[in-house]
């Protein structure tokens, strides 16, 4: 190979293979432990290797050797964030801005640290916007603006920011996923479903996709729940009409899921009983309730309306709806371990 300095070689390798970069840097750092650039690269490699504790160690040493650079401070921020040290991450991100306010990455980190700490406010949004202003060609800046805006309830701005990021990088799985999340918050379940499925195709390592698809299934079941509730209320007056309403609602939901979600959604559905038992319990209770309403509709077919108001079938259907609602409550109280 050509004669290459380890630091330059590591720079070339770091994005493609942090492990390979580390293999180059390890021996070099034993002989040159005070090379702050090499220490920063080692920290960056450790972040890539999901070892934030080591990354923090390297970044701290680099920062001691060169306190005037924002690079080691940024790396410390990331390491603290990944370790769950939210306060430290937020403090250091602000320190990095003070060191180098002209660098878009420092502003981005402020917003990022706030997002990780779940304490987003208008300062976070200002930082994200500043970062975007400094580097409008970086899709990442648009994504972070969108994430902060979404957390602040600015759904329209969030969608616009994610769409802009996707215009720049159509294969960006994070932007695609975040846009789908924003669509789900706006109640556009179909678009959200498309977005999550596309994310799964683009990057199967994003574990939240499955959890979000479960959330979409939950949304559909919630809609069905309302329809079945309406059916329960209607059934004492017109049993056949209530039964027909419920059947139509289920058919529409299944047709929509089959057409829009296709096989991937069916595969996710097949995994629901094991991965999300409360969601499954809700669906089963709803199905049972619907079946009772349909049965009641069939039994009262041809009879004058309001003749069997106190049917035990209606009562049982109501009871099952309550069971379903309890499952929802339990699911919210103890979120399923899907794709975490």
């Amino acid at each position, binding site marked *: *190979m050509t004669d*290459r300095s380890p630091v330059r070689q590591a*720079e070339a390798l770091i*994005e*493609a293979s942090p492990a390979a970069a580390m293999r*180059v840097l390890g021996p070099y750092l034993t002989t040159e432990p005070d090379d702050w650039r090499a220490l920063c690269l080692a920290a960056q490699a450790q972040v890539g290797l999901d070892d934030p504790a080591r990354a923090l160690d390297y970044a701290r040493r680099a920062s001691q050797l060169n306190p005037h650079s924002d690079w080691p401070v940024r790396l410390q921020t990331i390491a603290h964030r990944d370790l769950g040290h939210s306060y430290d991450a937020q403090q250091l991100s602000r320190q990095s801005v003070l060191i180098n306010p002209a660098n878009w990455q420092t502003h981005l980190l402020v917003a990022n640290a706030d997002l990780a700490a779940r304490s987003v406010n208008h300062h976070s949004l200002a930082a994200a916007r500043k970062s975007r202003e400094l580097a409008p060609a970086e899709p990442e800046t648009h994504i972070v603006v969108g994430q902060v805006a979404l957390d602040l309830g600015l759904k329209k701005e969030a969608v616009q920011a994610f769409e802009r990021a996707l215009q720049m990088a159509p294969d960006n799985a994070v932007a695609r996923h975040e846009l789908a999340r924003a669509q789900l918050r706006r109640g556009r379940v179909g678009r959200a479903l498309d977005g999550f499925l596309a994310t799964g195709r683009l990057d199967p*390592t994003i574990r939240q996709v499955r959890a979000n698809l479960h959330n979409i299934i939950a949304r559909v079941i919630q809609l069905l729940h309302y329809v079945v509730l309406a059916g329960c209320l209607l059934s004492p007056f017109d049993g056949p009409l209530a039964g027909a309403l419920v059947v139509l609602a289920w058919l529409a939901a299944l047709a929509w899921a089959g057409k829009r979600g296709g096989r991937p959604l069916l*595969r996710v559905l097949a995994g629901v009983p094991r991965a999300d038992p409360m969601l499954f319990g809700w669906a089963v209770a709803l199905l049972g309730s619907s079946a009772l309403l349909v049965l009641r509709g069939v039994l009262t077919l041809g009879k004058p309306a309001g003749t069997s108001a106190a049917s035990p079938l209606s009562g049982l259907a109501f009871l099952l709806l309550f069971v379903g609602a309890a499952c929802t409550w339990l699911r919210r109280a103890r979120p399923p371990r899907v794709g975490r």
Partner: protein
Amino acid sequence: MTQPLIESLRRAVAANPTDLPLRLHLAELLLDSGDQAAAIGELAAVLAIAPADQAAQQLMGRALGTPAEPAPSEPAGPGPAASEPAASEPAASEPAPDAPTRFDWSAAEEQLGIDVPPMFVGDIGPGNAGIGDAVFDLERPRLTLADVGGMAQAKQRLEASFLAPLRNPELRRMYRKSLRGGLLLYGPPGCGKTYLARALAGELQAGFVSVQITDILDQMLGTSERNVHELFQAARRAAPCVLFFDEVDALGQRRSQTRNSALRGTINQLLTELDGAEQDNDGVFVLAATNQPWDVDPALRRPGRFDRTVLVLPPDEPAREAILRHHLQHRPIAGIDTGRLAKRTEGFSGADLAYVTELAAENALLASVAGGEARPIGMADLESAVAGVRPSIGPWLETARNLVSFGEDDGTYAELRAYLKKAGRL
């Protein structure tokens, strides 16, 4: 009498070109009849298929006039000695009587006047393949697929997609099956992909060059591309040669996901070399391994490139038993039932099994220190180690599940899908 027989044998050989004994017989008859050129042609065909065939080597030696082996049982007859060297005359090229008989390829090349280019340029030792300042280690693995314990399914796939067409050139020609393209081994980490690649190289009796990203990637403009080109050139010179790209997801990651211009250029160059547009890739078998097939640039998976995939799964029961035996063989052990352990370690990777034996050894060592008396590793140590180790491939399987759930169902991951279904993960 001989000529009709030769003609008849020629027809038989034409009908069945891979019948080596038949070819050898024909070559012998041709040699006896004085048609050396034709005999050499037949023998060359035999040696191309079976380079180690001793009979063919001896006959080739005879055909080329090289003394292949002294025949001690044959009495030195009083025949016309004019054209033969005197028995007492020392011959520099003659092998020592007790030396192993080897066909002298150099002499053959000299006699045939073939100008064979050197395999490697520059002052590079026999263990390296390289050009200029680029050097790659060239190995000659002795390992074959028979040495790989278990993994019956992967071996079967390798045989079907790679070895069978390679071993049967006539059938390949008949079915117009191309040998273009490489093979991608994928699967969870620590399950023996690299080992399998080495065994495949041994099976092909080919050289083996393992390529790491560190051998290729360079920040300097154009250097990475040049490194890739030189690597392929070296492999072409060393053909038959297996080029093995380990962790190809790093080198050949999706171009849309990388900002590194050196990496983008490298992938483009790799595609060019794989296509063999400028050079012929005959005899260069390109293998790659990855834990993350989803990160590999789709362009690398197109026909003619890494278009064949083999899933290397966690070791099956026989393989687990073999791995456990391998890791325990040089340690003091007593009463170990590897079969029982293999049954209990379903889903463990090779690396997990190695860790199990390490833990068991650690247990036994600590117990020996505490007891003041050395004791061998027992079944209890191993069982407690197994109980303390969780299969490391869980996260990989989770991602693989997403891959087959959401990805295009184009058959690329059919094996993986079947495995996940069987394992109840889909």
